[in-house]
């Protein structure tokens, strides 16, 4: 026997409550991606004003917050696109590579022991989420934004290259470095303590 989900009443928007209910989450979302308080504040404002103008397009299928985050995501991508047009494709400076993960012969210098973690348990743990967000925030800017766009926001590879104005080789290199750094960070900030 299957249990049908209880029908929820059609969702309605409540713009007067947006800042109170979603302001912090939207700001955190923008901060992780643009890494500049003023820009993040402006983007939240643009998002909410834009959402108000587009309120007739809200169908109620998604939750209010999901809808607002979707609008913010577009504003952030527009911002990143403009920023990359100004800066051009810059090669990563050496210091942006983060810590060394390999010795000169190409052997691992670090060893993580088996994490043995269950993804479901991990994501339900708020502290883990915060640790992960902290590790992403600790990445060099270019690595972080490339990783977030592709791996978290699920933007297609070609689109990521267009937004950031980089080649696909550069994009893969950034994602790989971000992956190596995130793994080291999670090992030291989470898994080592948990064991």
């Amino acid at each position: 026997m299957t249990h049908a989900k209880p029908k929820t009443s059609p969702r309605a928007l409540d713009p007067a409550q947006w800042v109170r209910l979603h302001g912090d989450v939207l700001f955190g979302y923008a901060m992780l991606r643009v890494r500049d308080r003023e820009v993040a504040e402006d983007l939240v404002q643009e998002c909410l004003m834009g959402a108000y103008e587009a309120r007739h397009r809200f169908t109620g299928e998604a939750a209010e917050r999901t809808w607002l985050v979707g609008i913010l995501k577009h504003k952030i991508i527009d911002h990143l696109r403009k920023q990359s047009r100004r800066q051009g494709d810059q090669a990563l400076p050496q210091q942006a590579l983060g810590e060394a993960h390999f010795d000169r012969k190409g052997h691992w210098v670090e060893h993580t022991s088996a994490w043995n973690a269950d993804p479901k348990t991990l994501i339900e743990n708020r502290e883990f989420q915060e640790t992960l967000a902290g590790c992403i925030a600790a990445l060099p800017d270019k690595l972080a934004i490339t990783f977030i766009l592709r791996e978290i926001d699920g933007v297609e590879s070609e689109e990521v290259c267009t937004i950031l104005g980089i080649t696909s080789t550069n994009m893969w290199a950034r994602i790989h470095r971000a992956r190596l750094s995130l793994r080291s960070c999670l090992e030291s900030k989470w898994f080592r303590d948990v064991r």
Partner: protein
Amino acid sequence: MLKFGDERKRMFEFFKLLNAGCEDHARLISLSMDQSLSRSQRLGLKLHLMYCRACRQFRRDAHLMRETINLGCEHACEFPQSKETALPPESADAISASLNARMSQEK
């Protein structure tokens, strides 16, 4: 039996990979998570993983990170939620004021 035929370039790539260290193989592991590798890359990586525990561990960890992130994004649109990222009060007030002003135009 693998046939390399005239694909000298691929054969060269394969032998180069046999001599490559973990750094190159880790890069291939990352790449394989997003696109399919060439036959020689696949074979080279497979051989390396047979005897390299550290690279096997990296592959497991990288997949675990991806799986966790994917689940997290399904769980909440704002994943991962950061700590201490409150919208500054003055900014919250300014945005509320702009929204209210716009809303009152409609009334």
